[in-house]
């Protein structure tokens, strides 16, 4: 799965790229089924793909096409695919966590054995919605995983300016849930922690917090953003050294479980899929203006229509 995520770097336009953090979404989602749910953030492509989203519909959505996952109405920041339990990227920092709590509540209510996972960044743990979600999940002992992707920055501001702690897991005890730190550049380490947390949740033992130490290779959004500097070159270089995909490949190769050419094939396939998805998206039609008022409600009330016609 991790390999697949490399595609993020190829997306056009203004997007919050996931590149560098692929091991987190991949490691966590590998232990989730389509009937488990996740909520994502503004940085949602990686989570979507890891949860089983398809390139075609994703690429089409990013281009605002009618064939996209959201018919072009959501775009990057609201990309979702309920069919595989991806309850949406979210443009509001922290807002996904309470929704994941609701999904966890529904799973427990239906006793269906499913779990939900909320992905969020380090900076997001400073917002009230995160706090309320974490506490409520623990108070109600819900089957949920809180996955913090600590990439040390919120937009352009380093973590140490916005909190007096270094490790987000220090917050777990305040809610009464276990918390573990894992190397977010190591997909296996992330996966092992997620497997344990998911098993715990499915056993009815409640929420867990996993803090994955990771890094985003590109800018807050887009490749260059405003081109202003806020991270040291050697810091970026140091982390790029630890690229979660390439290091994982080397590891498998050294372990003789795969060969370089195996990966060459994966990459070739991947590039082909991506190229195909771009073709698909570009060939797809834009939504037509008559779709503007569709999907506001299940059925648009007649009097709303009337009041709407300018």
């Amino acid at each position, binding site marked *: 799965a991790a390999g697949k995520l490399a595609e993020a770097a190829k997306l056009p336009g203004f997007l919050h790229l996931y590149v560098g953090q692929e091991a987190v979404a991949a490691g966590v989602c590998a232990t989730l089924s389509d009937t488990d*749910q996740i*909520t994502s953030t503004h940085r949602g492509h990686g989570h979507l793909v890891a949860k089983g989203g398809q390139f075609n519909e994703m690429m089409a959505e990013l281009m605002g096409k009618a064939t*996209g*996952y*959201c*018919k*072009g*109405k*959501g775009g990057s920041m*609201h990309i*979702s*695919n*309920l*069919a595989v339990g991806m*309850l*949406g990227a*979210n*443009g*509001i920092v922290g*807002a996904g*966590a*309470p*929704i*994941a*709590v*609701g*999904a*966890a*509540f*529904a*799973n427990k*209510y*239906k006793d269906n054995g499913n779990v*939900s996972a909320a992905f969020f960044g380090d900076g997001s743990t400073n917002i*009230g*919605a995160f706090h*309320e*979600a974490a*506490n*409520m999940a623990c*108070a*109600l002992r819900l089957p949920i995983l809180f996955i913090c992707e600590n990439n040390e920055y919120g937009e352009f501001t380093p973590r140490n300016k916005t909190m007096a702690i270094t490790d987000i897991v220090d917050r777990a005890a305040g809610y009464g849930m276990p918390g573990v730190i894992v190397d977010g550049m190591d997909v296996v380490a992330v996966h092992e922690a997620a497997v344990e947390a998911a098993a715990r949740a499915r056993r009815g033992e409640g929420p867990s917090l996993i803090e994955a130490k990771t890094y985003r290779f590109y800018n807050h959004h887009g490749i260059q953003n405003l081109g202003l500097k806020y991270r040291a070159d050697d810091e970026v270089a140091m982390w790029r050294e630890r690229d979660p995909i390439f290091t994982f490949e080397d590891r498998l190769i050294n372990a003789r479980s795969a060969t370089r050419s195996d990966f060459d094939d994966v990459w070739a396939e991947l590039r082909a899929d991506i190229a195909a998805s771009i073709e698909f998206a570009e060939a797809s039609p834009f939504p037509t203006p008559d779709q503007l008022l*569709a*999907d*506001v*409600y*299940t059925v648009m*009330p007649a*009097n*709303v229509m*009337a*009041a709407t016609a300018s």
Partner: protein
Amino acid sequence: MTRTLSYVQAFNEAVRQEMAADDNVFCAGEDIGAFGGVFQTYAGLQKQFGERRVVDTPISEQAIIGLGVGAAVTGLRPIVDIMFMDFICVAFDQIVNQAAKLKYMFGGSATIPLTITTGGGGGLSAAAQHSQSLEALLCHIPGLKVVHPSNPYDMKGLMTACIRENNPTIMIKHKRLLGMQGPVPEESYEVPLGVANVLRQGTDVTVVGWGRMVNEALAVANKLADDGIDVEVIDPRTLQPLDTATIVESVKKTNRVIVVHEAVRFGGLGAEIAAQIQEEAFDYLDAPVGRIAAPFSPVPFAPVLEQAYLPSAADIEAKIRAIIARPGA
């Protein structure tokens, strides 16, 4: 079989019947379980349906709405309570940016059968943070539906409709009407969303109001009948979507109209109603659309000030007499 129930009992019965009929319906909120809610609107429900289906939550309005949104999008039919309407401000993002927009942002793939219940209105000396009527804020948000019953019958029927509705609804209970008694059928029924109720037929002037104010207006109308002033009184019941057609039809008959509400006048729902009436019945109007509402201040604590603040029957009567007196076109 119809009996007399209070506004609170009518609410409670609607929830009870829908919970009995559909296991996907559950309730969550502060103090609603063991205690039955600070207004006792949820009284006895946890005893009957258990802690699984009637959940006491932490004081976390954002997570309460989020719980509802997440549970709704994954197949349940949540009823979540925000104790006082003033507190929707604490959860405003989850209501406005999440619950209301999720379906649209997802291209329609999500369905959010969520009901948010809350207590609004003034008159209890509860001061600036426990007395507001904020319906205008919610009615401005595409994706939401808003109801505000003025009597026990509408309460049960509207609450039933809200629970069965497949879009996010907000049920505003008026705190001053909680004890109001009225006839309520035992069997469950819906008062359809988006359909106004003409409480009194009249020919001289139309008064549009909701919640406690429309009851005040009706009392004034009945009183003025003795003076030969024939007032038509309309209760939209659902504020979003608004049944403009019924209002406009009435105005085309009476040629004069007044909107009354407890909310602050500037930017209140009365402004939208006035704007729509003059757009759709311009040539029928013999006088400007009148508005009676609260002045531009927070709700004061002192009873004397709050009485001066809230629109009264006297204000309604005076405005009716004034608009009738105005020479028409």
